[in-house]
């Protein structure tokens, strides 16, 4: 049996290696979306915000920001699957679909919150956002009457 190890320096080395490895990726670098589709973030016309910081969008889709600037509740919607969903997650949240799914399941099973509304298609997403006060969603086609596109600061219009 080996001699007793000193845990703390070894843990610090492991933490430092993780941090150094994390530094390989330049800050703000986006994983390449697997599609040319450009997701648009849409909201219900009742939403007062017209521009969102990327960090705000990440906080909304992580369940950490739950109210708009006027205090009204954010109603979150996501697509179940598809290229538009993948591209949205990669471009704005830096997550893969499996990471996003596991993240929300952890919140649900730990008692931290309810799941976002899951939409089977972009048409249903559009209908939900149009008809639900405070709703936010995304799609890869032109928004239609009854919804409004929100600009994400730092991204091309």
């Amino acid at each position, binding site marked *: *049996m*080996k001699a*007793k*190890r000193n*845990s*703390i320096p*070894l*843990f610090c080395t*492991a*933490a430092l*290696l*993780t*941090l150094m*490895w*994390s*530094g*390989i*990726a330049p*800050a*703000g670098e986006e*994983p390449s979306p697997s599609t040319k589709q450009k997701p648009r973030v849409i909201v219900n016309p009742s939403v007062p915000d017209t521009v969102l910081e990327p*960090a705000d969008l*990440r*906080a909304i889709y992580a369940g*950490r*920001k*739950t*109210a708009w600037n006027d205090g009204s*509740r954010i109603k979150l919607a996501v697509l179940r699957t598809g290229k538009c969903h993948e591209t949205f997650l990669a471009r704005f949240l*830096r*997550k*893969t679909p*499996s*990471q996003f*799914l*596991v993240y929300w*399941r*952890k919140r*649900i*099973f*730990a*008692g931290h*919150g*309810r*799941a976002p509304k899951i939409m089977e298609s972009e048409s249903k997403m559009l209908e939900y956002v149009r008809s639900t006060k405070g709703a936010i969603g995304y799609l890869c086609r032109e928004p239609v009457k009854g919804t409004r596109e929100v600009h994400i600061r730092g991204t091309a219009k």
Partner: protein
Amino acid sequence: MAACIAIVAAVLIADPGSAADPPEFHWTASQGFLYSSGNNYIDGSGDGVWDFREYAVNAQYEFADNWRVGAQLLGREYGSVGNDRVGLDWALVNWHWRDWLGFKAGQIKVPFGLYHETRDMDALRTEILLPQGVYVEYLREVLTADLGAAAYGAARWSGAGTILYQLQAGERQMDPDDGDLQRLMAESNIEIEDFSAHKPGITAMLRFLPEALQGLRLGATYSIYDYTAEGAVASSPVSIPLRVEVRDNEFATCSIEYSLGNVTAAAEGMWSRYSSGAYVSGAEAPMAEWTDEFSGYYFRCGYRFLDRVEAATGYSYFDATDGMNAARAFAPGAPPRPSHTLEQTDIYFSLRYDATDNLIFKVEHHWLDGTAGIFEGENPDGVEERSRLLAMKAAVVF
């Protein structure tokens, strides 16, 4: 029961407001097989054991703006622990006043490290067994949930990042019948009949998500509480009632996790300490006093290399060289424990296949050196210093 009453009362007195969504239900179940060479890693695993499963169902309902109630039932079988007894995992009423401050009351999971709160949900991670250097199975019992209240929130510092925090106080919920702590106490020849708390436990959690490096999570948790275990000396021909008072049982973790694309790496460290005194019932002077200290760490890396296939590998180390002192406190002349029973290193490799978003298969192999996580009581013929462990599991989640 008290948690359930509080929740029902909150729903009854609340103003329904603009609540619209119906209650939401989720469930998960997993069934595994564990085979270990050389030792019984858990009871019976030396011959292969199917007593290795968890299942949970939860319901949540937003009954008014910013108000939510929910509860989860959990059953598990882990060798001789759990015995498929379904109990309340958590049940709470939550008031999310602002994003930076919310409150919850009821039976609340204890934050410990990054992954403890969902450790019983196999479908939510790559590995089958969480790294035992930090998520030590026989210490799980003392970190499950508090019956109490918590304040929590998330505050964003523009340009710097987001801080998540939680402070909770309550009576730690420990299972006197089928829990993990019985295995540890049995190793010291003590049979547990009941647990009670001296005073509320306090737990604090802090996490930081830097804006400049998305995907990075830094975290720390700390917990302290006291409790009393009522029981008896196990092997005595005459039953000797015994009371074990555990004071200032502290747990601390520090964590780092980074995700980039399909790769996630993490490292965590854990430290725990407590002082104990054993009293024959009615006596004021202890018949034995001792202090135990445990620590450990791990680092792991997972990579989803195909759309539905993920691999992970890790190294974990658990150090109990300053722990397991009860036996020597009861019998001062007893020889010291062999050093290999006080340490354990674990190198593992895991493979996860998501057949669908709801059905997951996993296989995992461990190379263990040391027997700190293996109990002599479950290995009456002695333990081998080095052993291997094969785990397989299927899980569903909805």
